[in-house]
């Protein structure tokens, strides 16, 4: 339930050889779904990962500000652990830990010292929110990797919810899933936005248009256009946006 604002955000890879994000300025509203679209390599993932500082893992250098709820997370004072607790993330390929369903969801809370007796309720609630409870409630001790891709992805969502984040980042969460699972995840996203601020990267423009309230179009590291999804898809202001969404690219 937080706003995100970036100011002159620049991200470089490999000793500033690759300039992956160029002066990105954006304001992401709370309790909305914001979609990031753009051609491959335009910096969507980079942007997403700069919001929870997971970029640092890949050796990225970040300049500029990312202000979450009024605090710049790159000011050196921000505790990255706390940050990542507040900003959850779901990845492109479902990546549950090779443990039981229960342990997967309980992983985060345990890390953060939640009491054992509260754990059961927390796990159930998270699974319910991720619309997975009914499918797994009798199979809590089975290893997560046995489940289908769509179920695994929802498990990853439940796992992210269990540490009670305010913002959730999704990096192409459906690209590895079949249409039916995709539909379920989309429905879930619409549910979740009532409680969370959601940012989602997607290659699928119909998906962006279906699930998001705001859309940002990136091109070669630049934020070309940002605005209400309906507006952006119906009346893009920039020619490049229009060419991209109407499939005339290149």
């Amino acid at each position, binding site marked *: 339930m937080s706003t995100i604002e970036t100011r002159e955000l620049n991200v470089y890879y490999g000793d500033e050889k690759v300039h992956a994000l160029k002066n990105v300025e954006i304001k992401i509203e709370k309790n909305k779904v914001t979609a990031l679209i753009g051609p491959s390599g335009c910096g969507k993932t980079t942007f997403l990962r700069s919001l929870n500082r997971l970029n640092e893992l890949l050796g990225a250098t970040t300049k500029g500000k990312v202000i979450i709820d009024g605090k710049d997370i790159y000011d050196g004072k921000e505790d990255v652990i*706390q940050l990542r607790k507040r900003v959850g993330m779901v990845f492109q390929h479902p990546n549950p830990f090779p443990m039981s369903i229960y342990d997967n969801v309980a992983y985060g809370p345990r890390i953060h*010292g939640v009491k054992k007796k509260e754990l059961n309720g927390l796990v159930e609630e998270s699974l319910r929110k991720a619309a997975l409870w009914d499918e797994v409630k009798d199979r809590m001790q089975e290893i997560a990797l046995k489940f289908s891709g769509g179920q695994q992805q929802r498990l990853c969502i439940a796992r992210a919810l269990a540490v009670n984040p305010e913002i959730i980042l999704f990096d192409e969460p459906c690209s590895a899933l079949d249409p039916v699972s995709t539909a379920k995840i989309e429905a879930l996203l619409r549910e979740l936005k009532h409680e969370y601020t959601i940012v989602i990267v997607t290659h699928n423009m119909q998906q962006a248009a279906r699930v998001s309230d705001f859309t940002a179009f990136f091109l070669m590291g630049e934020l070309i256009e940002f605005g209400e999804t309906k507006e952006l898809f119906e009346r893009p202001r920039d020619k490049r946006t229009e060419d991209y969404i109407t499939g005339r690219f290149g």
Partner: protein
Amino acid sequence: MGVLERVRIFKFWKMGESIKERLIEKLLFLLSLSSILIVFFIIVFMLKEGLPAFALGGEFFFGMTWHPATNQFGILILVLCTFIVGIGALVLATIIGIPTAVFLAEFSPEWLRNIIKPCVEMLVGIPSVVIGFFGLMVLVIFIRDTFGGWGESILAGWIILAIMTLPHVISISEDAIRAVPKAYKEASLALGATHLQTVTRVILPNARSGILASLILGMGNAVGETMAVLMVIGNPEIPFIPESVLEPVRVLTSTIVIEAAYMIWGSTHQHALIALGVVLFVIVALLNAITTVMIRKGMVK
């Protein structure tokens, strides 16, 4: 208000965490530093101890006679014999090992593979003294009875070493063959290639670097192998250039074992033995380095 709400109020942050994190990192650093130091120390120490022998220069490296009693420390023949035994064993291991690896990875029915594979894995680590003992009791006698001579010979060394090298060659080659993406195989078969064509034209070329690596690694193992060789190759008092595979020889490792027992402390002999060890180490390390590089390259490509 759900459980999540209550958790939100819960104070996760414990002051100790970050200090603990840093302590653990420091501890791990210290431990890893000490193991690295040990490695360096061993290498440096051996180099330093061998120095007096290296100082002999050409006499050491190119001398043809190794005779401690007369203070002659020429290693050329030892090195030569080491390679004769090593390469011969490797050839044998290659002839048997590579087809076995291909068979295991591509052609073997599942049940047969389940038998062969564990056997190969077991063979890797069988204590060399046991194999040497077996060689001594069976092979040497067999060779003596069949071909004449002492029995303790290059040939016995080849066979024993081949047995010991074989599993390395098979395991690594098989891994390399298996690492070739299944997609290539399917693509080739779908184009109407036979299984064998697929293996020879797509799979083996792709596993090439891994297979070569297995051979070089096998070579390193053969060169560095001690007890089993020691027990079957005869070890004549004064090493000479063999003229037939039935003659006994002396290799670097066996020389060290045998002479370490009676070397005199601080003598040139001691330094020469250490220098032998260093030479052995350098040979094996070089071979391993080549392997590592090749495997890396194979993976990157």
